[in-house]
């Protein structure tokens, strides 16, 4: 008895441990989700020397750093850090609680690198002329989300350096070892707008140019529709055959059982068995009492309270009556 009690307690402890583990798992996942949100941000473009480019709200021309939300969800960057010093990752904190720090999907946000943070959330406490790199740090003050070195020797006045395609990092491959192809000197500065694709043609318009009458579209699309449904056809052809085969096997098994049990049941017609089986099937089936027959055999209570939701006279899409 005591051994049994001990086993029960041990089992309970195991369950509790398991539950705690699951809970911890969820917490870790949840924290990752938050981190993942911020990790969707990246440094997208920057301008070091601004003498003839855009002016800020205070009428001054200064360098700037543009961040980009690569995701299709809003990201709040309040609490994150921007720095130019790898030894001081928390140099400039982006204010929390500012509505403007919620960056909409695939949108940009601009920080003026004027060294005058008292001017507002979007004014950094350093300038880019004195910086070697720009680092975007997560709200934990430790995790680096993105960093980019400033190639001072390549950049002249009013020339910005940015990602060729917004938010896209080109990874080095065996064929392409040139990782730097992610970034380039841009033809024109584009603060708070796309670096690439301003003149991009919509896919539909491009399609119309090569397929003005929609013939290619019709052939391609119909092929895809047929392909999808043909795949379904093959799958259900297979499952159907398997199901029929199984049913036959069961029927043979059942009939051989009946033969071995003696001949007393043989006088009962098959229809009786079928009727009993149908009634039992209908009774035990949770849902859908009938799907083909309009009359059903059941041992279940059939009276139903009237409800307009299930009223047959109000069914959807009736055939119009010609009068």
């Amino acid at each position: 008895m005591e051994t049994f009690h001990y086993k029960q307690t041990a089992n309970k402890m195991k369950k509790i441990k398991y539950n705690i583990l699951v809970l911890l798992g969820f917490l870790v996942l949840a924290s990752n989700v938050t981190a993942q949100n911020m990790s969707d941000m990246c440094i997208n473009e920057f301008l070091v020397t601004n003498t003839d480019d855009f002016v800020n709200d205070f009428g001054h021309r200064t360098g700037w750093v543009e961040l980009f939300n690569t995701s299709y969800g809003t990201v709040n960057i309040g609490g994150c850090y921007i720095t130019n010093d790898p030894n001081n990752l928390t140099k400039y904190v982006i204010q929390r609680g500012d509505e403007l720090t919620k960056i909409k999907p695939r949108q940009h946000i601009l920080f003026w690198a004027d060294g005058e943070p008292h001017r507002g959330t979007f004014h950094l406490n350093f300038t880019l002329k004195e910086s070697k790199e720009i680092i975007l740090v997560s709200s934990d003050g430790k995790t680096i989300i993105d960093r980019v070195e400033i190639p001072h020797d390549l950049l002249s006045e009013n020339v910005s350096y940015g990602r060729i395609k917004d938010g896209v990092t080109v990874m080095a491959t065996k064929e392409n070892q040139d990782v730097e192809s992610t970034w380039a000197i841009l033809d024109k500065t584009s603060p708070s707008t796309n670096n690439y694709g301003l003149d991009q043609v919509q896919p539909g318009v491009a399609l119309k140019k090569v397929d003005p009458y929609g013939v290619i579209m019709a052939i391609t699309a119909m092929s895809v529709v047929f392909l999808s449904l043909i795949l379904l056809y093959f799958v259900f052809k297979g499952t159907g055959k398997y199901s029929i085969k199984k049913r036959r096997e069961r029927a043979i098994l059942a009939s051989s059982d009946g033969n071995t049990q003696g001949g007393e049941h043989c006088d009962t017609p098959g229809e009786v068995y079928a009727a009993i089986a149908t009634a039992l099937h209908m009774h035990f089936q949770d849902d859908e009492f009938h799907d083909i027959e309009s009359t059903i055999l059941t041992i279940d209570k059939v009276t139903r309270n009237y409800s307009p939701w299930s009223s047959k006279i109000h069914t959807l899409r009736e055939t119009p009556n010609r009068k």
Partner: protein
Amino acid sequence: MENKGILSLLTENLQVFLQYTGFANATLGHIVMILLGLLFIYLAIKKDWEPLLLIPIGFGMLVGNIPLFEGLQIGVYEEGSVLNILYHGVQKGWYPPLIFLGIGAMTDFSSLISNPKLLLIGAAAQFGIFGAYAIALLVGFGPTEAGAIGIIGGADGPTAIFLASRLAPDLLGAIAVSAYSYMALVPVIQPPIMRLLTTNKERLIKMKATRAVSQTEKKLFPIIGFLLTAFIVPTGIPLLGMLFFGNLLKESGVTRRLAETARGPLIDVVTILIGLTVGCSTQADKFLQLTSIYIFIIGAGSFIIATTTGVLFVKLFNTVLKDDNKINPLIGNSGVSAVPDAARVSHTIGLEYDNKNFLLMHAMGPNVAGVIGSAVAAGILLGFLT
């Protein structure tokens, strides 16, 4: 003197009040649209044409076409108004997937599972969509607009709304009204085409009785169906996902309450909201344009193409099928996804030629395949054009 002051004040107030009334702001367009709304209501009540759709849409037309003094935050296009908030479900495209959830929960795919080759008829009828797309391009519509108009050929109101909200929001009202109107007219449009394209011998083809489908097959269908179609056309996930999810609720046998809610109160509520707000969106100044007339003409064409290709495909298919496996071409029209109207048309026409030839269950196969096919086609258009 004082009396004169009060009188002039009253007159001024009355004049201001009159400025706000519908009479002062009425235009010929408003009157035309109100008459159209009344016609929809008449057809629904008197002729029993799709009453569950035409009554909300027809009344919505009345609501949306009461001439308004703009700026009072009442109109469907005025941001923040009650109607505008309800219209968000159409604009953002979240009503159609909810309707698909309900359709999935009320659809029995047994006839399709028992005879899966009927799936191909559902695919063939989607030619209506791409035929209409080509016609719309020829008429001069842009590619995205042509795609949105083409989907009318799928004969599926929710899919048409879903795609139009993504591809051509400006044409949404005309496309939705056109799609629903032609769905109501399926019993009028399809029979002449079916009669024209079939011979008497073909109409008398008796199809093999469908086999009983096991519960396991029914449970597997939504899971496999979703995975296969969604992997091929991920852009169709909102519609396909909800359709198959609803069907799994029905067939799993353990979520009866959820299935009943999805196919009952939920779909009814969404049908009311989608019908009313689509009707409201036909505000005269937005709706009464030449483009709307083109959309209605192309829409009719798309239904004709869909029916024709469905019937012709069955005839073609029969050339490779054994005699005992032949399909009655009268079910070819059911490849469009107007469930169950198109299947009913097949059944009725079949009975006209042989009163012992019951085609309803056979026609339900291509009919539900049409629902899947049109959702896949919508996904393809979305993927290609955006």
